[in-house]
Each structure stands twice: as structure tokens, then as C-alpha cells.
């Protein structure tokens, strides 16, 4: 009996970690946009689902493997994100926070309803021959699809950190985030950098979406849940902190997996928000955040 309990705990832990990695990939772009531009992108979940549909289309129509289709999805969403930021969101970027919140909410309505019209509200998933086969580690079963998705998520998060810290583009993104005026004086084109940042975030969301479609199901209505999770994870990790998003994603993945095991009903959903509100009250700069990001957030 005790052995069964240990096993189910271990199984939930493994599942939570794998799911957490995927959640981290979903949230990392959201966190980047928030940290650099002070924009909370309510359409982020819609980008995730749009990416999933691009992957699904390529998979069903052309028979592409999702791990190949994710590159196309990323490219499509990068262009979309770049265009949206460059010629739409940049128009109101200096306004009060309601303005950008409302604008991205309008985008969310547009994209989600557009997907409803184009793809219907039915649940979809991207089929592969291997995603649901399991690796047996002792008594624990690890689905290959989830393991691969986890690998992609962690690799991309690390790649993003390297991009931001080691490359010219990355440092100009960070510089613009820290002090836009000074960055512009150094010859950085802020409009272009903002658009690039938003494009990168959308591309990461698209990859995450393709992975979501590979390991589970999705429909246009699930966009909202991913936006909310991105919020929670970005706040937990500290804004604009990419390793923070990874930590936040893993924490939420584990908390939800364990709570699903031990709590009755849907109390598990309340738990994520309880954690969120507590962290905000006690430690507004996030679990691994620095005071810098808390200080620069203004009304």
C-alpha cells in the first residue's frame, strides 16, 4: 500500500516536472515582453493556440512531424508578432497600463474568434506515432512526447538566455528595457527592438503551442488559461527573468501535479492563484527576481 503511494507520488512528480518545463516555455516570452516593454500581453495564450493550429495544419495536411512543423509555426508567429508590435502596439506603448491591456485584449478576442471561425471550436491534437509510447523507468512511466517537449522547452529557454546575454541583439533588447531614452541615444532603434522582442515572444509561444498540441489537446477557448498561467509563472519567477520563468514553470507544474493527487475537486485551480496572491503580497519581485524589476514598474 505504502509502495503504491510512493509510486503515484513519484509519477506525479515526474509528470509535474515535464509539464512545468512546457509551462515555462509558454511563460518565458510573456515575461520577456513584460519585463522589457512593461506590456502585459493578454493575447499571449492566443499566440500559443495559433502556433498549435499552424503545427496541426502542417501535420494533418502535409504530414509533417511536429518537431519540424514547430519551426514554421515559430517563423509565422515571429512575423505576426513583429508586425503587431511595430505598427499597432507601438502606437499606444506610452499610455497608461489600461490602454495596452485593452489593446491586447482586443487582439485576443480577434485572434481567438478568428480561430473559432477558421478551425471551429472542436478539440484537436497533433498525432505522431511515438508521442504516447512510454519509457518505463522502474514503476514510473514517462511518455516520449512529453519528454521531447520538455527537452525542447528547456533548450529554448537556455537559448533565449544566451541570446539575451551574449549577442548584440540581446544586449540591445536588455538596454532598451532598462532605459529606453539612453538606449536610443546609443543608436538603438527602439521601435525595431520592441518589435523584435514581441516577435521572439510570439515565436516561442508558437513552439510551445505545437508542443501543447503534441502532448495533449487544444481548442481556441483554451487560450485564456495559458495567458493566466503565464501571468502566474512570470510573477513567480520575477519579471523579465528568464531563468525565473523556468523556475516558476517547474514550481507551478509540480504544485498542480501534487495538488491534483491529494486535493479533491478543482481546489487545485484555486491553489495556483493563492500562491500568486501570496507571492505578490510577500515578495513582489518574484521568487528569484531582483529588486531592479520591481523598482522599474510604474503605474
Amino acid at each position, binding site marked *: 500500500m505504502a509502495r503504491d503511494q510512493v509510486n503515484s507520488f513519484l509519477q506525479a512528480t515526474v509528470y509535474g516536472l515535464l509539464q512545468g518545463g512546457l509551462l515555462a516555455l509558454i511563460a518565458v516570452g510573456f515575461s520577456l515582453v*513584460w519585463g522589457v516593454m*512593461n506590456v*502585459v500581453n493578454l493575447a499571449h495564450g492566443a499566440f500559443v493556440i495559433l502556433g498549435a493550429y499552424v503545427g496541426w495544419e502542417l501535420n494533418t495536411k502535409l504530414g509533417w512531424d511536429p518537431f519540424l512543423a514547430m519551426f514554421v509555426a515559430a517563423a509565422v508567429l515571429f512575423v505576426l508578432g513583429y508586425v503587431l508590435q511595430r505598427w*499597432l502596439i*507601438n*502606437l*499606444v*506603448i*506610452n*499610455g*497608461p*497600463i*489600461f*490602454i495596452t*491591456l*485593452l*489593446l491586447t*485584449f*482586443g*487582439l*485576443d*478576442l*480577434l485572434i*481567438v*474568434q*478568428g480561430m*473559432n*471561425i477558421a478551425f471551429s471550436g472542436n478539440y484537436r491534437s497533433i498525432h505522431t506515432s511515438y508521442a504516447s509510447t512510454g519509457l518505463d523507468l522502474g514503476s514510473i512511466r514517462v511518455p516520449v512526447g512529453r519528454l521531447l517537449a520538455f527537452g525542447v522547452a528547456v533548450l529554448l529557454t537556455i537559448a533565449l538566455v544566451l541570446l539575451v546575454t551574449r549577442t548584440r541583439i540581446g544586449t540591445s533588447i536588455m538596454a532598451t528595457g532598462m532605459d529606453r531614452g539612453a538606449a536610443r541615444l546609443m543608436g538603438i532603434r*527602439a*521601435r525595431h527592438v*520592441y518589435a523584435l522582442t514581441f516577435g521572439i515572444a510570439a515565436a516561442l509561444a508558437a513552439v510551445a503551442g505545437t508542443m501543447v498540441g503534441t502532448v495533449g489537446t487544444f481548442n481556441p477557448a483554451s487560450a*485564456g488559461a495559458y495567458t*493566466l498561467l503565464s*501571468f*502566474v509563472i512570470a*510573477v513567480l519567477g520575477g519579471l523579465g527573468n528568464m531563468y525565473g520563468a523556468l523556475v516558476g514553470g517547474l514550481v507551478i507544474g509540480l504544485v498542480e501535479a501534487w495538488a491534483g493527487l491529494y486535493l*479533491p*475537486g*478543482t*481546489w487545485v*485551480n*484555486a491553489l495556483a*492563484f*493563492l500562491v*500568486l*496572491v501570496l507571492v*505578490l*503580497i510577500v515578495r*513582489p519581485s518574484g521568487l528569484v527576481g531582483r529588486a531592479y524589476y520591481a523598482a522599474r*514598474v*510604474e*503605474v
Partner: protein
Amino acid sequence: MPGVTAAETERDEPSAAAPPGESRWRRYVPWGLGILLLLAMLGLQSQLYVGQERTVSAIFMFVALAQGWNLIGGFTGYACFGQVVFFGLGGYTTAVAMTHWGMNFWPMLLISGVVAALFGALIGLPLLRLKGHYFAIATLGVAEGMREVVTNLTDLTGGGSGITIPTVGEEATTTYLGNDGFYLLFLGLAAFSVLVGGLVSRNKFGFALRAINQDEEAAGSMGINTTRAKVAAFSLSGFVTGLVGATYAFQQAVIFPERLFDVDITVLMVVMVVIGGSGTVLGPLLGAVVLQFLSEYLRQNFTSAHTFILGAIIIVAVVLLPQGAVNYVREARRTGNYSLLANVRRYRL
């Protein structure tokens, strides 16, 4: 509506600047117009079909909700994205008390408002220390969390499958108001919320809130107890929203957590206030009427694409009128510059 706009535009100007005789009657113009509007709406009722009556009731409901949000989001400048928690809390307080404890609707209406106000004070104390997006998200978290709590208190609330307020037979504690009754009740709530907004915008409390909106530290150093003012504003906006929630619950009779804590209701309040003009009394009123009317029109004429069109309209409105219609007209009248293009440039990068 140009007459109303003109009268409202004068409202914020200090009365000392105008000649005393003129300022005296000008001050009462908005009140007079408000009463005329109220009488017109009372007269309108007999001209409406049942369906139209419901639509207009919904408009009144959103006027009250938008005015409620405006107190915290507009005057005080705290972007509350969990306002629906007061709506849901008010609704469930009434529904549970009427169903399980045999309470009459009318005292419960008031009690629901008070419960929502107390809850606002309780969560306001810790949460109103947060600023900007953090406050927005913390309140959103409270609303989502409360929905889950209500969903899981199955014995009391019926959980996800909902709760039914008895409206007929012996179990009914209060005679169901019917379409006509709810029209009047929602009209009353809308009038009450506009009255609250109008009073707040003119008295010292309202000026304290505006000062906090502009610069909280400066407001504090001018002797405003910012914590008390913010919590009071949050509580008052919770009270108004709670009243509306209680009425909505009784009108629907069958209520679900998914509907009463729907994040879209919060977003609608925000959209209405921002598009109309936040921090004004006329703005939320206009925003609610126009947007709810438009939304209903689109729903009836473009069944599948109505949210799509609504999203596009929100985007265009936010880009063209980021400060809201009423504030735009006021500024344009003051500066003589009506160019929308110049208006778009103000927040551009």
C-alpha cells in the same frame, strides 16, 4: 447628446472662476439633465417589447457596473482586473441566503452590497499596496481563486452545476419581479451608481482620489491618508458592484460560478470606462450604453463573428481615443485641436 456633453464639460472647472450667478445654475445642469434622463427612461418602459426591455435592463446593469469600476479604476487609477469578484460575491450571497436560509430578497440586496464592501476592505488593505500591473494581476488572482472556492463549496453553492433560487411555489421567499420589475430595479441601480459617481467626483473624497491617481506620494505629503482613501474607494466600488451582482442573480434565478465570476464581465467594465473616459461621470455612462448597445446589435446581426468585430472595434477605439471619448472632447474644446491624428501621436513610440 451634444447638450449633455457641453454641460458636463463645464463641471470640472472651479466654480470660483465663473461669475457667481452663472456658476450657481450651471452646477445644477448635469443634475437636471440626469433627472430628465431618468424620467425619460421611466417613460420609455411602456414603449418597449419584452425583448427590448431585457436589452435595456442589461444596458442599465452595465452602466452601474462601469460606474462602480470607475471609482477604483478611473478616479483612483488602480487597474482592478478582478472587479467581478464583487459581482459574484454579491450574487452568491443573495442566492445562498434565499435558497438555504429562506431570506427575503430586499434585505439580502443590501446585505450583499455590504458583504462585497467588507470583502473589498479586507483584500484592499494588503492588495492596494501593490502598484500597476501587480495590482491588476493580484485582483485577477483573487477573482479566479474566489470562483474556484465557490465551485468547491458544493453543499452551499451547488458547485459547478449551479444553484437555483426558488421563484415560484411555497419555497419562493420573494415574489419574482418579472421583466418590468427588474427594468425598474436596474434603472434604480444605474441611477444610484451615477449619483455616487457624481457626488464622489465633486467632493473632497473625489479630489483625494484624483490626487492619488496623479501622484500618490505627493497626495500623501499633502495630508491625504492614502491608504484610507484607497480602501474606501475600493470598498465603495465593491458595494455598488455587489448590489448589481445580487440583482443579476435574482433575475437569472439559476446561477453558475462560471457566469458570475466570468473575467469577461470585468473586462467589459474596463473597456466601457476607458472608451467612454475614465475618471469622469459621463464617460462610463456613455461607454456602457454605446458598447452594450453595439454588442447586442452585433450579436443579433452577425451571430458567429460578433466577438471578432467587437475585438476590432476595441482595438480601433483604443488607438484613436486612448484617453476616452469624454476626455478627448474636453481637451479638444479647450485647445481647439480636434485632430484624431494628433491624438494618436500622444502615446506613440
